């Protein structure tokens, strides 16, 4: 039992922290967002250069054999500076799916290409009205000779419009809502029959709404086993959750630091407002929440790679619940303690708040995951 970073992780952490601090300031971030491109080529190349984009891939595919704890280190630093690069979409979600379920050919083609920074990917899974129900897939893949024809409507596809390839979940058998009968396909984003709408998100990322109209893909595009994709989807989402928990912890730390600085300097009634006991206790509670969230982010990272489904699901849902609640509390109170300044676009705190809010909404909010934990208790008692 230990909570120390390895020497490698410590180095990763140090160099990344230097990078985001020196090269990814508030103004720079604003430029990246305003470009509307959803990624900054120079930043992405630098991340590739640092080895970050390949860290969690096997060494056979130019990776470093890392795991979700390495992702935690990365995401925490991203959270601290609110990096808006498509790391979650490309490396964690799509990269994780290919790493864990891709064929040899898929791995050989994709993982080095992600790792070198030359290919962006996205995971197209959620559908309108599905909310956080992972098995609620209406998109179909119909066998047509040697190919499949994919039709359906995907939403909340993180960085979907920036991706060259999409990993698309589709129903190959079973009824809407069944866990059985789902499959994953690798689809070229430029394929005929695909209509992509690109949207900004409130936190400076991008999301896409994608319609598939009889999009033909070859049988080689199947990722993993036909009809058996649900566990893969669930695990990819758990990897995403663990990454978001790490990012949230970084953003909460940044919020607490910014707020602490603010209340130490801002004066009202002749004294720094940090001298008011109510604000002191509020700040203490924000600190407590962030520390508890950090513990849960560590738990999430430690369990995210596990194939022991029950244990992993419990840990990840517990983590997302408490991290979501902490994100809400720290975000709201950080803004509150900044007073009027906190609700203006010019303050970093406002942007931290927005990201923390959206992290709670992604892959299931706190209430959704609490229900998962709760229903797990019922199963355990049966």
């Amino acid at each position, binding site marked *: 039992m230990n909570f120390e970073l390895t020497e490698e992780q410590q180095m990763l952490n140090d160099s990344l922290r230097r990078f985001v601090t020196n090269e990814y300031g508030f103004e720079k971030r604003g430029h990246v967002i305003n470009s509307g491109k959803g990624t900054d080529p120079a930043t992405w190349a630098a991340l590739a250069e640092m080895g970050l984009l390949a860290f969690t891939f096997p060494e056979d595919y130019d990776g470093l054999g890392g795991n979700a704890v390495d992702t935690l280190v990365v995401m925490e630093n991203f959270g601290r500076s609110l990096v808006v690069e498509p790391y979650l979409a490309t490396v964690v979600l799509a990269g994780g799916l290919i790493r864990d379920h891709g064929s040899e050919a898929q791995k050989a083609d994709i993982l080095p290409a992600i790792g070198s920074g030359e290919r962006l990917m996205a995971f197209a899974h*959620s559908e*309108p*009205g*599905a*909310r*956080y*129900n992972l098995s*609620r897939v209406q998109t179909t893949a119909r066998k047509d000779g040697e190919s499949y024809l994919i039709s359906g409507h995907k*939403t*909340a596809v993180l960085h979907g419009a920036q991706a060259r390839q999409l990993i698309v979940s589709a129903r190959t058998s079973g009824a*809407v*809502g069944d866990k059985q009968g789902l499959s994953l396909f690798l689809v070229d984003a430029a394929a005929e029959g695909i209509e992509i*709408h690109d*949207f*900004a*998100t*409130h*936190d400076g*990322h991008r*999301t896409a*709404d994608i319609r598939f109209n009889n999009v033909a893909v070859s049988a080689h595009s199947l990722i993993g086993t036909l009809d058996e994709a649900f566990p893969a989807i669930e695990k990819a989402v758990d990897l995403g959750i663990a990454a978001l928990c790490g990012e949230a912890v970084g953003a909460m730390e940044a919020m607490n630091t910014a707020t602490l600085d603010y209340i130490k300097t801002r*004066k*009202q*009634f*002749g004294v720094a407002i940090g001298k*008011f006991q*109510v*604000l002191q206790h509020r700040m203490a509670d924000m600190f407590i929440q962030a520390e508890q969230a950090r513990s849960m982010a560590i738990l999430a990272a430690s369990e995210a790679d596990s194939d022991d489904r029950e244990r992993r699901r419990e840990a990840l849902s517990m983590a997302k619940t408490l991290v979501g609640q902490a994100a809400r509390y720290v975000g*709201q109170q950080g*803004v*509150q303690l900044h*007073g*009027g300044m*906190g*609700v*203006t*676009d*010019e*303050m970093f705190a*406002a*942007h931290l*708040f*927005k990201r923390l*809010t*959206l992290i709670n*909404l*992604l*892959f299931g*909010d706190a*209430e*959704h995951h*609490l*229900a998962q934990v709760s229903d797990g208790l019922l199963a355990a008692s049966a």
Partner: protein
Amino acid sequence: MDLNYTPEQDAFRSEVRQFLQDNLPDDIRERVQKRLRPDKAMTQRWQKILFDKGWGASTWPEEFGGPGWSPIEQLIFEEECAMAGAPRQLDFGLRMVAPVIMSFGNDEQKQRFLPGILSGEDWWCQGYSEPGSGSDLASLRTSAKREGDHYVVNGQKTWTTLGQHADWIFCLVRTATEGKPQQGISFLLIDMNSPGIEVRPIIMLDGEHEINEVYFDNVKVPVENLVGEENQGWTYAKFLLGHERTGLANVGQWKATMKRLKEVAREERDGQRPLIENTRFRDRLAQLDAELRALELTVLRVLTDKRGPGPQASILKIRGTEIGQQLFEMLMEATGHDAIAHVPDALELDYTGPRVGSIDATPAAGDYFNMRKLSIFGGSNEIQRNIIAQLVLGL
């Protein structure tokens, strides 16, 4: 003790409802109910319609052109307007500067300013806060120096909501520097077209332009624009803050929002079922619904209390803003991850392009972000708790 409305009050409610059904333009209703971007023309058009009916200012006494309604009737009117999808009237004129002019202004000021407020012709904004003085309002530094028959104003105001549209601004300015900071403050009405005034937008965290900074560089203001006595402005400001807090309970508005939230919970899907069938979501809705009921009853208790609202009104500000914030948080969470998309163009009525999720997802996150202001502006909720502790509880 009787919690039922009287037959007369019920009849009044029917009359208001009928009027709204007949006179609230469809495009305005649609804009409001879809929570699209508000605009000045819409607010003014609606104010004119109410004005023509004689209902321009629900809280005003008859002598100034108000309908002379009782507090309960005012509440019924507000609630019906909110439920029907009418836009909020502009508080700054109707409920903030007007009561001050009525109570402390001279006859000439009443005749000059009140009609424009009532008809909606004159757009007013508020010049209270300054960069260095938020909750500590009395530390304000914008100065007004008397020079002959006018004041020369220099300084900066901030958080000026909708100041970009304004014809007039009512300001607290410093006219003397001796004594306590509360002394030496005066209440001045300033024409926004005066030379030397500059309005700069502040973009809020939802990306919208709602608030402003207002700079005064040697702005000349005629002395007849001083309300009441010089150096007595703090008294008028406190009077006004009391007015503002009662309104901030916002029960009518929140009842309409709650109604919409319940509809959204029926319309949004949670996989195979409507969201309202999700017990966890519904329980939170039920909790908030009960809290809103408690707030409503508390407002009614205060309104029918012959002693009038005292510092207890701080409760209404606190609970009203907390409930409002939670309503918009739930409206966001109801649309789930669809709320992450930021599509500002879709906040216009004529937008026909793509959006993410239902129409309720479009304003969901932005509104939630925007509503964080409720617990900060108008005397932060921390300040309100100080008021309760000190003025009500004697601590």
